[in-house]
């Protein structure tokens, strides 16, 4: 029995962003894991001292490239709460549609990375090829593939016409049909099942004890989803949180697979239920300075994100805090890694969907 310490990271083929876990091993089994983060800490929360509240939205949406839209939306929604701004309904529907498209894009990215992590590169390329279509939709409607810059305090900057929305829906439904084939690969391929089934099991009690959020918790049988609170027009669409009970890596893959189809369905409902007609107002003009504080909760692809904004009546905010879902899932990750085999560690770390840029801001 030999005790070794292996640093996992900061560069590892499986990690989209750098994080270090010092793994303390006894032979091949992990006894403990000590995290060190800070490789991508840019001090973005400190920027509130330098950037006025009107432009801080652009800084916030650049916290992370994968979750970019929801960061911008969360910031604008928080400021709108503080300043009591009434956002036009069409703008709120557009935000919901863009947020769900962002969720599809993020899950496709993660499914590709997950496939790459256990060596299935063909599937990885296939998922990312489908993701390219989503990024083209973003570029057509917002002007940018990753950073969208459409959210403003008071609404959105660009409208999508009804005909364009119908075209986007048709394209997404076609994508959903093509994605069905890929989903079947994830669900039935024997090599994937062999690598993921029974690996990294997080029981329901453990998931509650470490306060897991998002697909991590839903794969362990806890039906939490911030969208159920009904805020931001989610009470006008019908959906159920996708829950699996096995709690292993395969369950987490299945939850994210099903959420892609669920998001396409939510977009279809949103396009049906939103007010029709071109030329509607999409932005309310905002004047003055904010004063007050608010907590805003949204459901990002990785789980519950909490934005805390405190303003003190000047053009500079006093505090901005984004508690991202990966930050809440790191204790779950450490708990999972302890007791597993070394060869399973990359898979396990990837299944929490680590977005370290969000964690460290």
């Amino acid at each position: 029995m030999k005790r070794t310490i292996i640093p996992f990271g900061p560069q590892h083929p499986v990690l989209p962003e750098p994080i270090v876990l010092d793994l303390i091993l006894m032979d091949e089994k992990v006894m403990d894991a000590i995290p060190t983060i800070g490789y991508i800490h840019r001090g973005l929360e400190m920027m509130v001292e330098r950037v006025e509240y009107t432009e801080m939205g652009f800084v916030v949406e650049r916290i992370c490239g994968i979750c970019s839209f929801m960061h911008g939306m969360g910031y604008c929604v928080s400021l709108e709460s503080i300043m009591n701004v009434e956002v036009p309904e069409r703008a709120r529907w557009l935000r919901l549609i863009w947020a769900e498209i962002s969720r599809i894009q993020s899950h496709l990215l993660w499914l590709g990375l997950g496939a790459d992590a256990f060596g299935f590169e063909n599937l990885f390329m296939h998922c990312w090829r489908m993701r390219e279509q989503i990024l083209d939709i973003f570029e057509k409607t917002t002007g940018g593939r990753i950073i969208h810059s459409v959210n403003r305090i008071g609404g959105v900057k660009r409208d999508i016409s009804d005909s364009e929305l119908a075209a986007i829906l048709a394209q997404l439904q076609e994508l959903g049909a093509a994605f069905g084939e890929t989903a079947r690969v994830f669900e039935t391929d024997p090599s994937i099942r062999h690598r993921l089934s029974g690996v990294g099991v997080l029981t329901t009690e453990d998931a509650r004890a470490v306060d897991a959020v998002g697909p991590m918790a839903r794969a362990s049988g806890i039906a939490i989803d911030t969208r159920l609170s009904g805020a931001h027009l989610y009470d006008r669409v019908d959906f159920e949180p996708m829950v699996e009970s096995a709690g292993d890596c395969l369950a987490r893959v299945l939850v994210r697979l099903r959420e892609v189809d669920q998001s396409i369905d939510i977009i279809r409902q949103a396009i049906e239920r939103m007010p029709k007609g071109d030329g509607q107002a999409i932005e309310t003009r905002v004047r003055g300075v904010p004063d007050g504080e608010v907590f805003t909760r949204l459901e990002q692809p990785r789980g519950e994100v909490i934005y805390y904004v405190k303003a003190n009546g000047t053009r500079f905010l006093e505090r901005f805090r984004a508690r991202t879902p990966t930050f809440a899932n790191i204790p779950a990750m450490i708990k999972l890694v302890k007791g597993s085999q070394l060869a399973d560690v990359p898979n396990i770390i990837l299944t929490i969907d680590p977005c370290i840029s969000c964690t460290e801001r």
Partner: protein
Amino acid sequence: MDRAAFLARVEEYHRAGWRLALINVTTVLSTEADMPGVFEIAWAFARGGGFETIREQIEPGATVPSISEFFGAAFLYENEIRELFGINVTGIGVDLKGQLYKTATRVPFSHAAVKARLEATRAAAVKHS
């Protein structure tokens, strides 16, 4: 702050099945020139659609008890507030000993550091472009 009362409230949230959502600190500078200001700490708990916070105001240098015995996931937040704000949190479950973030300035959100940066950026903003 009243440690016993605070820990009792935290225990109640834990027993009722609430989840720890966030521990947030805001550095509030004082309006008087010589006073250092306070830290506002908010412990946020969530259960389903409910969201409640415990708020405390503490002086710089005061100690804050860790809630790791009830909420194991608190260690990450508490290490962070110790490193970024300089608040002395006692009894953290997993103590990372100041190695969590590697910032260029230690304790970047202490009152002195925030005040110094605000003065520098105000001076620069006046002569913008």
